[in-house]
């Protein structure tokens, strides 16, 4: 099983500015001034090994879209944020437009950042493709249709050439989707949101974004930990700091790196992936948050080590 991250930002796209790119290049040139970077290989090694992630690369700015590859013929995606545009291009490059495919998409909820890529989801324009959109959220169909409609978008939903189906799921039931076993989980979030646990080939991924967890609510914390239990990977909404999420941003519907570690430790999950990055946080900030989260896991560890990473656009985790 593989998790391929096409969009990892929260709330709205956050592309790098010209100034930010310039600052990265200037910093890299200064740091590499005395290294003999006269081949592409040497320069690439310098970029990935000597520079920090934030110095040499970027976490990216596309909103939520994660592909779960389980080895079957169909595609399985979580959410339709702006990252789905690049996913579309890669899928089309792989098969060409003449070969129909089936795309299964689990949608957490219909806040704009999680569906705004759908109008640019190229497979929807191609006859013969099959697209199945699943959610526990009751308004998925209304939101997707409403987005592809004048005056917001010139291509009406009804004119899309692919066959598009909406499937309403129920929490706690088990479904067979794209060859994976999928269960859903109701999450605390404005206008509701749902997490998905995807299991296939003895591996499990939990996609849990746009979810607030209240540390004082033991029953709810246990319920979340049970949903994460022994997962190989938990993709977790770590948008805020703990202090923010229980003070000024309480009831804003998002969680923190600290609660991600606590829940994954309780759940005996194997890997925590920080996701739905706050758009205000630049690359250096996210690097720092990741380093702090790794340290927090170390100092609070009671059992086996929990691996911690921060999602970036283009990241692939093989399980």
């Amino acid at each position, binding site marked *: 099983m593989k998790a391929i991250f096409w969009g990892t930002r929260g709330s709205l796209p956050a592309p790098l500015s010209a100034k930010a790119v310039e600052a990265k290049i200037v910093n890299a040139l200064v740091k590499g001034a005395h290294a003999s970077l006269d081949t592409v290989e040497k320069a690439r090694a310098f970029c990935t090994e000597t520079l920090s992630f934030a110095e040499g690369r970027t976490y990216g700015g596309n909103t939520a879209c994660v592909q779960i590859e389980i080895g079957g013929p169909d595609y399985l995606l979580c959410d339709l944020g702006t990252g789905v545009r690049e996913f579309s291009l890669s899928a089309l490059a792989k098969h060409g437009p003449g070969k129909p495919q089936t795309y299964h998409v689990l949608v957490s909820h219909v806040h704009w950042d999680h569906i705004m890529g759908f109008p640019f989801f190229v497979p929807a324009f191609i006859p013969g493709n099959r697209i199945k959109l699943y959610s526990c959220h009751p308004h998925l169909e209304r939101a997707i249709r409403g987005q592809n409609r004048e005056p917001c978008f010139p291509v009406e939903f009804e004119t899309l050439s692919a066959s598009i189906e909406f499937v309403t799921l129920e929490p706690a039931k088990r479904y067979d989707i794209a060859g994976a076993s999928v269960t859903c989980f109701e999450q605390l979030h404005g206008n509701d949101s749902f997490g998905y646990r995807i299991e296939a080939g003895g591996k499990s991924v939990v996609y849990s974004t746009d979810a607030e967890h209240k*540390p004082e609510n033991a029953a709810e914390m246990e319920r979340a930990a049970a949903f994460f239990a022994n997962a190989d990977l938990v993709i977790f909404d770590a948008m805020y700091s*703990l202090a923010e999420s229980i*003070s000024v941003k309480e009831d804003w519907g998002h969680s923190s*790196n*600290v609660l991600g570690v606590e829940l994954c430790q309780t759940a005996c999950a194997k890997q925590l992936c920080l996701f739905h990055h706050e758009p205000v946080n630049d690359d250096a900030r996210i690097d720092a948050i990741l380093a702090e989260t790794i340290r927090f896991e170390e100092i*609070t560890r009671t059992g086996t080590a929990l691996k911690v990473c921060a999602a970036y656009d283009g990241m692939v985790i093989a399980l």
Partner: protein
Amino acid sequence: MAWSERQVGDAVLAEARGRIDLSNADAFRDDLSAAMAKAKTAVVLDLSGVDYISSAGLRSLMIVFKAAKAEGKTLALAALQPLLTEIFTISRFNLVFPVFDTVRAAFGKVAPGAAPP
């Protein structure tokens, strides 16, 4: 978690010891708010004996801190162990609470007339 407290002038010096987590966060909150009710100006919480605090414990601190603020009182935290300082920094609680290296420094700032011996 063990708890003790004593009145020092208009303030209360409280001391928690052990681990503060989900299992005792409510008791911790109740002890702390009771101490705050007895204080006229501030509670200085000596955390030198606390080796771990979870998110639930931090939330208890936040609740009492907010309620105290609304009444014009202060909650000052003092003498955190290095590990606790790290937890406060990572969770950004260091930006919320007044945190002091020693109990004496905390009193000097939040209840200057009531410095403990």
